[in-house]
């Protein structure tokens, strides 16, 4: 408590001395418009010095900096705008090219499919023709073989018949008889075959 009172008294004393200092100016009533030509001249001189020196060493660089920055930003914006327009134009161009390429690819695929179809059909046709030819040839060969076999069979039959007849008749037929008999037999068999077919 004592300490608090002491603190307050110290503050009080300090304020009292401060107010004494405050009250120390005394004399005639002060004029709020106090001043004279000296103030005006000093103000003019100091202000002009400030305007000139600040203008040269501070405002000049700052103004240049602001103008450069404005130009820089304006250029950057213009460039960005140009780049954007260019990019859009390129995008449109690329889209167009892409569409074109896609159409071309589709056309190529279509053409390939068509070619493949044609080739397939050609191969089929060729294969069928080849097969037909083979079948035809096989038939012809079969016919020839059959004819040859028949002829051999006839010859063999004639020979066997002749041999049997010779044994039965007991006499040998002449070569001319043989040939006549064979020819007659062959003709008879051929006639029979023809009538069978």
């Amino acid at each position, binding site marked *: 408590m004592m300490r608090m009172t002491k603190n*307050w*008294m110290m*503050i*009080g004393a300090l*304020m*009292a001395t*401060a*107010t*004494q*200092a*405050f*009250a*120390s*100016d*005394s004399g005639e*009533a*002060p*004029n*709020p*418009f*106090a*001043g*004279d*030509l*000296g*103030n*005006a*001249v*000093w*103000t*003019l001189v*100091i*202000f002009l*010095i*400030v*305007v000139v*020196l*600040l*203008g040269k*060493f*501070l*405002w*000049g*660089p*700052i*103004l240049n*900096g*602001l*103008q*450069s*920055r404005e130009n*820089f930003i304006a250029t950057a914006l213009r460039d960005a705008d140009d780049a954007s327009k260019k990019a859009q134009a390129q995008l449109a161009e690329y889209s167009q090219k892409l569409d074109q390429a896609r159409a071309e690819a589709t056309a190529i695929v279509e053409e390939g499919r068509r070619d493949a179809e044609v080739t397939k059909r050609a191969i089929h046709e060729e294969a069928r023709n080849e097969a037909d030819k083979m079948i035809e040839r096989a038939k012809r060969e079969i016919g020839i073989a059959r004819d040859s076999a028949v002829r051999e069979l006839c010859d063999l039959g004639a020979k066997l018949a002749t041999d049997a007849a010779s044994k039965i008749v007991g006499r040998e037929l002449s070569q001319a008889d043989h040939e006549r008999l064979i020819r007659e037999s062959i003709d008879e068999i051929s006639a029979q075959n023809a009538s069978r077919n």
Partner: protein
Amino acid sequence: MTAMLASSNPLTHVVQHVWGEPIKLADSGVFSTFTVMSNQIFMMVLAAFLLIVFVIRAGRRRRGNAGMDALVASGFGNFIETICVYLRDEVAKPALGEHTDRFIKYIWSVFFFIFTCNLLGLLPFDAVAYFVTGMPEHPVHLGGTATANIWTTGTLAFCTLLMMVFNGLRLGGTAYLAHFCPGPLLMAPLLVPVEIIGTIAKIFALTVRLFANMMAGHILLAVLIGFTMSAFAVGLTTGIGVTIPVVLGSVAINFLELFVAALQAFIFTFLTTLFIGMSVNVHHHDDHHEEGHHGEAAAHAH
């Protein structure tokens, strides 16, 4: 106690204190004396010194020397450049248009000079000196607000007038002279004096507005602190009881004064810009006239 109250006229702490004797130019009249140095003139010199030595150095600081870094402010330079950009883009360009960069250096100088003077006026040099030296009286009164002197504000406003007239004639030519008679030529004898008086009134308003605002805040503070003196004269308890709210109130008023210091510097700069704009852009005078009135209305409202 009466003597103490009489000596505690709050104006004493706000008005100019001449250092030494003024030079006598004439026996009487407004221009009879010439003050060689005073606390307010010294504060103006100090403001100029700070601006020239420190603000130039700080304002030129850039993040780097080349490329984009050279375009970007750094440290305290940001503070200065932000104000400069605001004044140029929001205040000067609408009023001055194409002439903005021609006058912007002057406009920036006006703002920073007045702002620095206003701020320095808030520093209690004399009270600090008393606490350091313990001397109630010093050979010279320290501290003070340069812009709380009507001769100072008048001179600054006179510079605005010179800028208006000189640049009006230089850039506007006959159009500037013609705008003194906006009506038919027959009305010239009536209109020209009115326009001239209007121009002088603008400058007078500029003078008084800054002076009165800076003076008023300081008188208010002086009156508040004067209460403590009266209270301590009554007794210690009363003194302490009064001192506490007074100190709190003074702190609050000081914050307000900080705001007023910036505001008044801005208003002076803003109106100077508008007036110069009205002089140099006489061909679209009407638009700016409107703006001018808005600006003045705002200033008067304060």
